């Protein structure tokens, strides 16, 4: 029996019952990973994972993640395992330490079986700009659709049934968007809820540890493991960690949920619109009050603008350390300057370089007021507007993408110039650090799409509760491509 396409609880019970061992699971996951034809893997940790499966501490068998295979996005430092963030400049880099996230998972008995492909350095939302090329959507055997990014390989590995959960990162919507295209649950908790120690910084004020599961319960369980203060991360929160599974089944009676007219109006797919409205009706059936509200369209349109300027500026600075001197793929030259220039010229994609230039220009003294600082000002106005909504509502609910996964041939690796609100609004949760979750809500032409719920900071329990109740109604838990 293939357990890897099941939910975590089912696999856990099979281990407890002795029906399957961690070693069986790891061997199977690795064999599936090797057969993967979606380009989901940067590196398969065959030796390391089998060794770990053999040496697991049996006293930990009661832990939910004991023996559960997991895939980690390639922008998390993993000790002794190559980590490139899908960028040529990091070819050959082997970290000497592990991310806090990986350490916490391994302490619970989870076994890292692979590192996943991504858009280079987490910049981009298509899964087509990593140094290994395009990552495909397992729902589409013909390989004509993207899976989205930047956490493309992490999404593909769960949706293809290789592992029951995977770690990604979310700076604009890099987990929540691919979750929509891959039929997965993608959770990005509050900024500071999970330590970023070991996560390669792209835009630290927007970066979030985030992850994919096949259902909301698993998502809550993983949060129980990952959430909590880490003294190594000075942005890590001291807020008490809850048992996030506890309130999952609370009735929705009395919950107030806002849907935003301007976002819905910009959804192009009629199927998605209709299905979304159906799920709104589910929420109402369960006793929630769902109101349609309005947010200034200009403000919504400026979410992406604000995001792209802040993210590019922070990225320019964060990736200045990639010079080939201390680590990474150095290219020789006759002087220090020449070495760094050659290394960076060869090491970054054209897209990454353009983002760096834009980020850099927006930070220059002569431009900073008009570009970077203005974006930071706009960030406040956007966040204020959403906080105002959260004064009255438990959550905001909207389609997670305006369409199903787009075609590869129409996908461009470029800064978006259209300001389609429904395609870009989810970054508001990064600007404001709000916890935000995507869950599958329907299919169109055989491809899944999701709905997105967002709540106020540190209100994960409430958010997961609403998502879980909605999931019960949609019946779209634990869907796997091709099954």
């Amino acid at each position: 029996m293939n357990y890897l396409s099941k939910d975590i609880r089912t696999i856990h019970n099979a281990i407890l019952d002795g029906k399957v061992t961690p070693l069986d699971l790891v061997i199977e996951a690795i064999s599936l990973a090797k057969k993967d034809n979606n380009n989901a893997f940067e590196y398969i940790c065959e030796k390391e994972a089998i060794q770990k499966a053999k040496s697991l501490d049996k006293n930990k068998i009661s832990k939910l993640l004991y023996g559960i295979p997991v895939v980690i996005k390639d922008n998390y430092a993993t000790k002794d395992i190559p980590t490139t963030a899908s960028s040529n400049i990091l070819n050959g880099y082997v970290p000497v330490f592990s991310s806090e996230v990986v350490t916490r998972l391994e302490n619970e008995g989870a076994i890292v079986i692979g590192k996943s492909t991504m858009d280079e350095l987490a910049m981009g939302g298509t899964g087509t700009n990593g140094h290994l090329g395009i990552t495909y959507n397992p729902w589409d055997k013909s390989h004509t659709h993207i899976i989205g990014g930047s956490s493309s390989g992490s999404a593909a590995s769960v949706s293809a049934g290789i592992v029951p959960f995977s770690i990604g990162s979310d700076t604009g919507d890099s987990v929540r968007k691919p979750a929509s295209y891959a039929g997965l649950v993608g959770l990005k908790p509050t900024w500071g809820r999970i330590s970023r120690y070991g996560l390669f910084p792209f835009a630290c004020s927007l970066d979030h540890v985030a992850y994919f599961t096949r259902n909301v319960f698993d998502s809550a369980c993983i949060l129980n493991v990952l959430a909590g203060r880490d003294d190594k991360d000075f942005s890590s929160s001291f807020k008490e960690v809850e048992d996030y599974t506890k309130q999952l089944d609370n009735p929705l009676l009395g919950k107030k949920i806002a849907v935003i007219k301007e976002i819905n109006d910009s959804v192009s797919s009629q199927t998605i619109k209709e299905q979304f409205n159906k799920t709104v009706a589910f929420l109402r059936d369960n006793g929630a009050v769902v109101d349609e509200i309005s947010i200034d369209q200009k403000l919504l349109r400026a979410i992406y603008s604000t995001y792209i300027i802040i993210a590019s500026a922070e990225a320019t600075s964060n990736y200045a350390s990639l010079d080939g001197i201390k680590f990474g793929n150095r290219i020789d030259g006759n002087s220090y300057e020449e070495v760094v220039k050659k290394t960076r010229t060869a090491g970054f994609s054209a897209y990454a370089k353009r983002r760096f230039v834009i980020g850099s220009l927006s930070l220059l003294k002569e431009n900073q007021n008009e570009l970077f600082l203005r974006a930071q000002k706009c960030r406040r106005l956007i966040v204020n507007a959403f906080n105002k909504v959260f004064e009255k509502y438990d959550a905001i609910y909207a389609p997670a993408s305006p369409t199903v996964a787009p075609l590869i041939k129409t996908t461009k690796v470029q800064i978006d110039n259209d300001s389609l609100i429904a395609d870009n609004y989810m970054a508001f949760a990064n600007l404001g650090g709000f916890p935000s979750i995507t869950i599958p809500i329907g299919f169109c032409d055989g491809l899944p799409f999701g709905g997105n719920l967002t709540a106020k900071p540190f209100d994960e329990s409430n958010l997961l509760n609403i998502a879980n109740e909605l999931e019960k109604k949609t019946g779209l838990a634990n869907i796997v491509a091709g099954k």
Partner: protein
Amino acid sequence: MELEAIIGLEIHVQLKTKSKMFSSALVSFGCPPNTNVDLSDMAFPGSLPTVNKKAVIYAIQMANALHMQIDDTLIFERKNYFYSDLPKGYQLTQHYRPIGKNGYVEIEEDGKIKRIGILQLHIEEDACKQMHLKNKSLLDFNRAGIPLLEIVSLPEINSGREAAKYVEEIRSIVTYLNISDGKMEEGSLRVDINVSVKEKGSLGYGTKVEIKNLNSISNIQKAIDYEINRQQKIILSNEKVKKETRRYNEKQKKTELMRIKLDSVDYKYFTDPNIVPIKLSEDFIKSAIDSSPELAKQKLERYLSYGVSNNDARQLLADKDISNYFETGMKKCSYPKEFAKWINQEVLSYLNKYKISILDFNVSPSQLVELINLIKNNAISNKQAKQVFDKMVEANKDAKEIIDGMGLTQESDETELTKIIDEILDKNSQAITDYQNGRDKAIRYLIGEVMKVTRGKANPSLTNKLIKERIERR
């Protein structure tokens, strides 16, 4: 045309914390290369900055000593530029919110006090050490990330001498606070100077010239004086001073061009998003201040109150190790004035002669105090004491032992002593009355008289006993 020089100083002080500013790596000097590093010193992706509590405490103590407003929130900025000694591609510093603002120090010249304003004090991190060889450079990251305090003065200094006094004062403060070695020659205190010359009384500034790479306070003074003179000559010959960076050439005693300043580099400052604002509670700031070691200025007042002369007190304080020596001795010493004088004269001349530090001096403070006590009790004369001192240093023995060995034995013949005492008592009826009225001082005076007559050879305790007996008999 009368010209005046306007000088501003930027001083970087390396803090002697145990670990680095934003990483846990050890702070230590002279270690093998790349032994004292942590993840973020190598800029490994995913490593994060953590703020050193001790360094913050030191910064607060410094800000307090400079009479500054102390910010209760710590925020750091990134100063972005590419250079081989900068592992992350940016330096963490405090660009917008320095921990200290608007302070001053006082310097004294010709008996007049001048206040030099200090614009700001901020926390930042050091870069890595480079060794440039013929066709390659070598990088050692041990220094990368060591905490630095940068102290930016207002342009209120007008001469090389004032600048030297200002740096001397800052150096004294950091060494007495025990937050830095403050050694220019070793780079734990670094000074960058901006010098410009303009018409006296005119508004605005002349062209600023920066002087770097100064390794001693006396060179600061020489470099500035040379530079002022150079710029004056240029201005007086109706030419323009160029905006440039110069260095001081010690051999030729002049400043020389390092590089012409082109457009200033744009550092693209922005707030570091990894360190959320750190609130320093009132209690935290207060306890940092309360635990500040005493500054030279405060010690000076204390020494003066002991009766130490102004000159001696200042001389003791010029070197923190010497003032420490003095204070250790003071725990057992009842003669501060003499003790201080003895240190400044005999001890210092010995140290200077052999060019050693007081830390390597083999006569302990309490041994020296014992010698002073012997002098004060008239057990030996000053002249004898100097001989004894020389032997103490040479033989590493206590004063008493040496006195015995040198045959400076005391007069202990009771009959002989009684005779002398009676003669002295005959001449000092007032002292006798004083003693009878309960003044112990009188006895000490009489003992002193006996010592004079015996040239210090009388046994003090026997003398004491006999004087009392002879007075009773009268």
